[in-house]
């Protein structure tokens, strides 16, 4: 019962946060504007958006920071200047055990972590929503088979499968993102499936069917647009989770491999000398924390803004 009940619970919870099934939009532009107005009223969400933008700009301009601000490359060793404290020896945020500049590596690491999580989340969303739509719309045995498959993946701690896969195949950066998606799609597929089933039984779907719409059109034009908001909210919850999972895996030495920096493998390295340079442990984790927190809070804002009943 737990799986079914949990899924029902999640769907129920998500639905109570926004009644997507009845919020059929006729004037999409108007709705978007209204949603943005509602979002803007949420100060916490707006500040989080600004923080997230700052982190993204910081990470994407890693090359510029390296050239103009720090003057160090991310893998440039200066062993004689290793483990400098912030501000010492011209290192703005200190240096690591190999005398590499921490600020430069934070920016490059951010780029790696953010692009990784976004990429993995998009592919997961693609796989999960296709499975969810198909399972929910087709029902019967298609649904059973796909969902049993999802159950299998959900019943194993994902990190343990990731550890198993990474330790055997030693996947590269892009392959690893794909592995994430192949293992973690069941979560979103559950939500999309539940939503699709709820929508499938709505009168407007019957109406479209009666007027001769094909299954393809029903799913593409009538169900998908109504599932999109819930997918967006899901993405805002899962990107931080992916950033943390990638960092965790890299922290175990099984994710992004050095010398390519990621916030996770910077933490792994800094763990060895936390006694002398605690700031090297603090900073990468702080970046992960700020990123995850800001995306979570933006997600909360989105959820409130996209819910048509939440006129405050």
């Amino acid at each position: 019962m737990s799986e079914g009940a949990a899924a029902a619970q999640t769907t129920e919870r998500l639905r109570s946060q926004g009644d997507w099934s009845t919020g059929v939009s006729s004037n999409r532009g108007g709705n978007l504007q209204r949603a943005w107005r509602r979002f803007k009223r949420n100060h916490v969400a707006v500040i989080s958006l600004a923080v997230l933008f700052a982190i993204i700009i910081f990470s994407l301009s890693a090359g510029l920071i390296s050239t103009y601000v720090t003057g160090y490359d991310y893998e440039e060793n200066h062993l004689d200047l290793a483990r400098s404290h912030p501000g010492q020896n011209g290192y703005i945020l200190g240096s690591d055990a190999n005398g590499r500049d921490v600020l430069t590596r934070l920016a490059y690491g951010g780029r790696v972590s953010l692009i990784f999580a976004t990429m993995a989340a998009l592919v997961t969303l693609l796989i999960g929503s296709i499975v969810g739509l198909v399972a929910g719309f087709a029902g019967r045995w298609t649904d059973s088979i796909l969902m049993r498959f999802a159950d299998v993946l959900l019943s194993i701690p994902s990190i343990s499968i990731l550890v198993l896969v990474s330790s055997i195949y030693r996947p590269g950066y892009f392959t690893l993102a794909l592995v994430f998606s192949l293992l973690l799609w069941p979560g979103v597929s559950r939500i999309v499936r539940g939503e699709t089933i709820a929508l499938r039984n709505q009168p407007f779907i019957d109406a479209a069917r009666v007027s001769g719409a094909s299954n393809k059109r029903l799913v593409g034009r009538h169900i998908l647009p109504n599932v999109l908001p819930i997918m967006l909210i899901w993405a805002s919850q899962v990107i931080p989770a992916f950033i943390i999972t990638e960092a965790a895996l890299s922290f175990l030495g099984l994710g992004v491999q050095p010398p390519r920096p990621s916030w996770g493998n910077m933490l792994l390295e800094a763990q060895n000398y936390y006694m002398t340079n605690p700031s090297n442990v603090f900073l990468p984790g702080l970046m992960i924390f700020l990123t995850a927190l800001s995306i979570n809070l933006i997600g909360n804002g989105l959820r409130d803004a996209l819910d048509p009943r939440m006129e405050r």
Partner: protein
Amino acid sequence: MTGFIVRRLLQMIPLLLGVTFLTFAIVNFVPGSPVSTMQMNPKARPEDIERITRNLGLDKPWYERYLNWLGDLLHGDMGLSLANYTPVTDRILGVLPNTLLLTTTALALALVIAVPLGVLSAVKHNSMFDQTTTVIVTALAAIPSFWMGLLLIILFAVKFKAWGLPYLPASGMQDMRSAGGVVDRIEHLILPASALAIVQIAGWTRFIRASMLETIGQDYIRTAEAKGLPRRSVIYGHAFRNALLPLVTLVGLALPEVFGGAYLIEQIFAWNGLGRLTLNATQANDYTLVMGATLFFAFLTMAGNLLADILYSIADPRIGTKS
């Protein structure tokens, strides 16, 4: 009730088959095989390699190997560790109590903190306390557990020692020199269990708050208040018990996360458990051990979920044991 448990056990069979097959497939469909590294070794004689291949059963087709492996598994035999040829089952059972000690302590700690926080937040809805709790809990949800672990070590083990305050041990399960007693073991348990509990505290507090708020809004609560029951007994007698019901399922669902978290926390705190065993095995390319441990984590999770289901149906008689 018995029928319900039996049915749930039967439902687990396809799930178990799926999990075992997935694990088997990941390990066995690798291009190359455990002997391919030996083939590159000029000192290895071809007949030796052939013998090892035969001993490991690698000359048979994959489905035959899967069935054999599954058969062994049914007898509790997970094969021999490739690193030192000891039975994988023994290695796993050897460290299992340590992992269970850590995870159950973390779960208990999370419950003890999350339940009162969530209930109080709901009861004092929109108060200062509620808002502060919400802020802290939202922040906690975004903290990676392994970073939290490192920060806890830096603060409570390193800095406290430097400041001359009573400090906690940074790693290990007990004091090496004095082979400590219960107090010493508890001291070693505090930091890793807290680090592991924090993620759950964040999630559960929010959940309990929401669940409690929902329950307080129900008609029978208004009835209880209307008939003049003191607020205390309405909240704790009527609302509390019903609001906590879904928590049983939630604890069951949190198990994969907690066991997954054990990988990281055990590594940071040098806690000699299943996660650390697995990670060391990955570094030694000990596939059989990694495979066994992964399966074991999956079994533990499924058993936990089953237990949660059974407990739930006992706790809430409305949930049909018939369906």
